[in-house]
């Protein structure tokens, strides 16, 4: 038992932090100590954590830059919201429907990850980044012109406008172009978000420590050497990329089932969102899953905490971001920090440890 704990220490610490945070927030919620603004932020926060952790699988573990993570989230959000909308009252109870919705979001986002990954994963670095960015924009664009309605004759599709669906009088709009999907059941709760974070963490942390996870990291470190020992590079790149996409889809499910009206805008599913998630990952430490969780929490709450500063808050956010990057990564700043740390023996051991 003790050995089991030692071997999985990092995993358990990460899961412990998340559980601890969940309990604290639940207590605060029960005590009524949280503002409604903060409460409204909880489910999106859970979605962001899942996004950051899953993107880290692509960026940190696979070592490929993706700027289209929000696109996969978008697919998960819309496929699952569509499913929930047509099955409200058909599948009972609600939680069961939500479980199905999650599986659907996972599946479709993963499928798109697979389909887009197959042709583009052989591209290198920045080229892959721009292609994934393009992909995210395409998804957002297409959803904005997609009209789906339902009447007694079945489903109707159009990419022009709602009129050309030719719905009967009593027909129902399901996806209404730029207006998106309205009336998705509000199945997402903070607890559901917490559970999904825990599942995502277990999947990713255990994946990394598996035979397949090692193959993925071997590809990251040296493709040619990985091939020379018989690692199928395409297969494992695709596996990691699709898994990352599928989990982003789960985040999308959580996100969409928290909203009355789901629209694909630049803000929530555009490249801005992809970039925001990437910022979480890089600031948390590329390849550090725990870091992704923590930085997603801090960076989501930071602009809210700065809300008192009103118009200056995003400016401050930008400055903090630049300063942190320089402080963390500039070789001169690193050298300076190492000199400072060397003077404080207490920190010495800590900085030498490596976490996953």
């Amino acid at each position, binding site marked *: 038992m003790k050995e089991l704990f030692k071997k999985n220490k990092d995993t358990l610490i990460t899961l412990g932090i998340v559980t601890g945070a969940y309990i604290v927030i639940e207590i605060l919620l029960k005590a009524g100590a949280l503002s409604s603004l903060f409460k409204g932020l909880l489910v999106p926060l859970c979605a962001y954590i899942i996004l950051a952790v899953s993107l880290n699988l692509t960026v940190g573990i696979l070592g490929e830059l993706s700027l289209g993570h929000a696109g996969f989230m978008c697919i998960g959000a819309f496929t699952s919201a569509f499913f929930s909308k047509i099955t409200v009252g058909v599948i009972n109870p609600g939680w069961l429907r939500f479980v199905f919705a999650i599986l659907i979001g996972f599946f479709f986002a993963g499928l798109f990850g697979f389909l887009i990954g197959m042709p583009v994963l052989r591209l290198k670095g920045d*080229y892959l980044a721009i*292609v994934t960015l393009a992909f995210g924009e*395409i998804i957002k664009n297409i959803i904005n*012109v997609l009209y789906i309605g339902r009447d007694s004759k079945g489903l109707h599709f159009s990419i022009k406008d709602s009129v050309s669906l030719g719905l009967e009088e009593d027909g129902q709009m399901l996806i209404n172009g730029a207006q998106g999907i309205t009336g998705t059941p509000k199945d997402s709760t903070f607890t559901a978000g917490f559970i999904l974070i825990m599942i995502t963490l277990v999947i990713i942390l255990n994946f990394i420590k598996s035979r397949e996870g090692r193959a993925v990291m071997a590809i990251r470190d040296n493709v040619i050497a990985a091939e020379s020992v018989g690692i199928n590079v395409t297969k494992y790149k695709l596996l990691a990329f699709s898994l990352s996409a599928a989990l982003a889809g789960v985040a999308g499910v959580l996100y969409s089932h928290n909203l009355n009206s789901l629209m694909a805008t630049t803000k929530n599913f555009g490249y801005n969102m992809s970039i925001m998630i990437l910022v979480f990952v890089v600031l948390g430490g590329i390849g550090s899953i725990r870091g992704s969780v923590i930085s997603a929490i801090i960076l989501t709450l930071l602009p809210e905490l700065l809300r008192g500063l009103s118009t200056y808050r995003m*400016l401050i956010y930008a400055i903090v971001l*630049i300063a942190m*990057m*320089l402080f963390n990564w500039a070789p001169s700043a690193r050298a300076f920090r190492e000199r400072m740390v060397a003077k404080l023996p207490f920190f010495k051991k800590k900085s030498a440890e490596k976490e996953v």
Partner: protein
Amino acid sequence: MAFLSYLINGISLGAVYAIIALGYTMVYGIAKMLNFAHGDVIMIGSYVVFCVVSMLNLPVWLGILISVLVCTILGVTIEAIAYRPLRQATSSLTVLITAIGVSYFLQNVALLIFGANTKAFSSVVPLDAVKIGDSLTVTGESIVTIIACIIIMIVLTLFVNKTKAGRAMLAVSEDKGAAQLMGINVNKTISLTFAIGSALAAIAGVLLCSAYPSLTPYTGSMPGIKAFVAAVFGGIGSIPGAFIGGIILGIIENLSKAYISSQLSDAIVFCVLIIVLVVKPTGLLGKKLQEKV
């Protein structure tokens, strides 16, 4: 005839993309980084012209001159403060994120000074539209933009290939270490690249806002992304590639707006990009790189 006019508008839009893409491509070629803030430099340049011309009622040429100056200084400053310290950093991701930070910063500075409301930008092009035949009208903005783009292309190509500073840029983009050993001042060369790229961004901003006369703090982002796509499309690091990529992108965008769907035009542009890269992984004119085993 309608087709011809869509085509000319497309070329004109593409010319703007090409000018912006030149900035991306030169910076990428030399500093190997995606300067995400480039689009926002365009926006700042446009606001400067707006201030000088519309608010202070000074002549247009002065506005453009000041804008070019401001952007040049801005570009060089950004490089020196935010990017240079990270040049030796282990991961290229760090400088990308910093560039994103700079982009947020510029947008929010503009937001604080000018507010979120759209400013009506009055065209700085004094030329009237030209009528060819009965139905084909070419706006003055289109003519000026296309001519400006061609001139910039020619001058830049000559500069890079014929002058000492230009050849230093080529040398640094080829191999920084070797260039340094040859006595080239790498920092100065990179600064110069940022200066040129940002000056071009200022010009692109003026042309863009003259053709599409509305200005917000986010005006630069989408054209920035598109121009970046154009640069990748043509083969990032290549000056003629940026030109060709920009023009093709503008044409595709405008024709798909006219004939397919205005809402889907971006998706079509991005689809073409993906197809081009899948077929030719380093863009139309990009160099093929192979790792030595």
